[in-house]
């Protein structure tokens, strides 16, 4: 075991793994996290805590991850390269490990243009691949980026994201290969709505036998409304929602659209389970945490295994 995280055990023991997402609040109230923890407990094996997602200032991912742990849930601390240089990144990695956090998700980070402080200066001292290398070197070689020795190395299971739907498509598998070469342990993909394209991507992943060297979890997001579906389709870069999905939501009366969104999500999970090389799902119910249990249950993912 690299980090002795629960997530690592579930994956190592070949269970079809479930992760979910928990966004920290835009304030200092820990109750918001505790309430979300109550809704999410038992629904997944580990829970992502986003790091100032979409460049909007929120409670720090380390703090929110610790609050989640106090509720008995295992966090996956997200870390972006946008806001910290290598000094702050390594310092936060040590701090997170000291606090008992055992999973990290290494991300470049959305550009600050999309957030609530578009006039901010960004950092990007490292990119996401170099961040993976950094955590791995710190954990496995007990060395800082500088090469100096770490007395007590951090213990973290290393994750990263990949977007099979961004361009250039042919580069998406190669980029995954770079992340694997950098030492990533697990991958969570961007939300999968276009299953045909995802299957095509996974075939390319398996052709390169990358699935043998990294655990891949497919991202899913329940669509809450037609407005949300249209917004994601038209305004979120790198997202792919097929027209037939939009039409399916459009085709049911307004009051039944939430249910349709859940049904689509459950069907997607059922189909994802059959795709070669996929080891689990990552349920991103954006500000809709109360539905994660229902989705997991209907997709026959509950109860989660004891490991």
């Amino acid at each position, binding site marked *: 075991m690299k980090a002795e995280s629960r997530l690592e055990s579930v994956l190592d023991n070949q269970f079809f793994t479930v992760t979910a997402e928990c966004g920290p609040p835009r304030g200092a109230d820990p109750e918001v996290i505790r309430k979300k923890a109550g809704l999410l407990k038992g629904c997944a094996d580990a829970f992502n805590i986003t790091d100032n997602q979409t460049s909007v200032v929120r409670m720090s991912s380390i703090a929110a991850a610790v609050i989640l742990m106090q509720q008995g849930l295992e966090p996956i601390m997200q870390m972006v390269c946008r806001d910290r240089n290598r000094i702050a990144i390594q310092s936060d990695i040590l701090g997170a490990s000291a606090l008992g956090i055992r999973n990290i998700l290494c991300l470049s980070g959305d550009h600050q243009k*999309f957030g609530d402080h578009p006039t901010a200066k960004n950092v990007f001292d490292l990119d996401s691949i170099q961040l993976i*290398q950094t955590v791995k070197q710190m954990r496995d070689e007990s060395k800082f980026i500088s090469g100096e020795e770490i007395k007590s190395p951090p213990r973290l299971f290393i994750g990263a994201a990949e977007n099979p739907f961004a361009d250039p498509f042919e580069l998406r598998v190669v980029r995954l290969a770079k992340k694997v070469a950098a030492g990533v342990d697990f991958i969570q993909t961007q939300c999968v709505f276009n299953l045909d394209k995802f299957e095509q991507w996974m075939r390319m992943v398996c052709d390169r036998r990358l699935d043998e060297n990294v655990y891949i979890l497919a991202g899913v997001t329940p669509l809450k409304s037609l407005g949300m579906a249209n917004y994601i389709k038209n305004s979120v870069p*790198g997202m792919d929602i097929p027209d037939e999905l939009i039409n399916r939501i459009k085709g049911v009366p307004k009051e039944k659209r939430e249910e349709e969104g859940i049904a689509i999500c459950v069907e997607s999970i059922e189909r994802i389970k059959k795709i070669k090389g996929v080891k689990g799902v990552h349920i991103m119910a954006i500000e809709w945490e109360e539905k994660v249990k229902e989705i997991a249950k209907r997709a026959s993912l509950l109860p989660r295994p004891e490991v």
Partner: protein
Amino acid sequence: MIIAKRKPIEKILSMIAPHRKVLVVGCGGCVTVCSAGGENEVRILSSALRMAQAKEGYEVEVQETTIERQCDPEYIEPLRKFVGEVDAILSMACGAGVQFVAEKLKNIAVYPALDTSFIGVTEEQGVWTERCHACGDCKLDRTAGICPIARCSKSLLNGPCGGSVKGKCEVNPEIDCGWQLIWDRLKMMGLEKRFEEIIPINDWSTSRDGGPRKIVREDLKL
């Protein structure tokens, strides 16, 4: 070259508001080529200042001159004769020129008429785009001659982020995705394998992170 653009006239007017005798100084270097601060632009700005101030009901004496370059001391020297004759200098050079004129002439107010934008190229008549961040350690040999530091909005060194769509950057559809350009050119040259190499963590100490930079060439010193 260094690409700049003129500040809005209102901003320039408010900067020089306390002064009654102003010298507008153009630069014959980069800003002449990118039509921001050469002889032509000096003439246009000077007459705009005269007109605007006449409208406001006060008179300002605006003189004009353009020197070869504002980043070389010998060309700045002739400006010295204006010190005492005018109250302020409005420099139409890049930020380096504005500072060097102020540094050399010492006892006179020097104001910037331009916003210095970037190191770039003339993509077509009237269109300039950024190419270089002057990081001090050129890596163009590894990235098919296209710089990821200057051309990727996040300066990512190992490929495009998840926001690259149809060749465009998530920040703005007017911006080409730098990594799409790099990939296309690698492919064109049959160098796809090069993308698979991980570019290591960068040494930014040669960039502005190492503090203000200096180059000394002993062989050229007098």
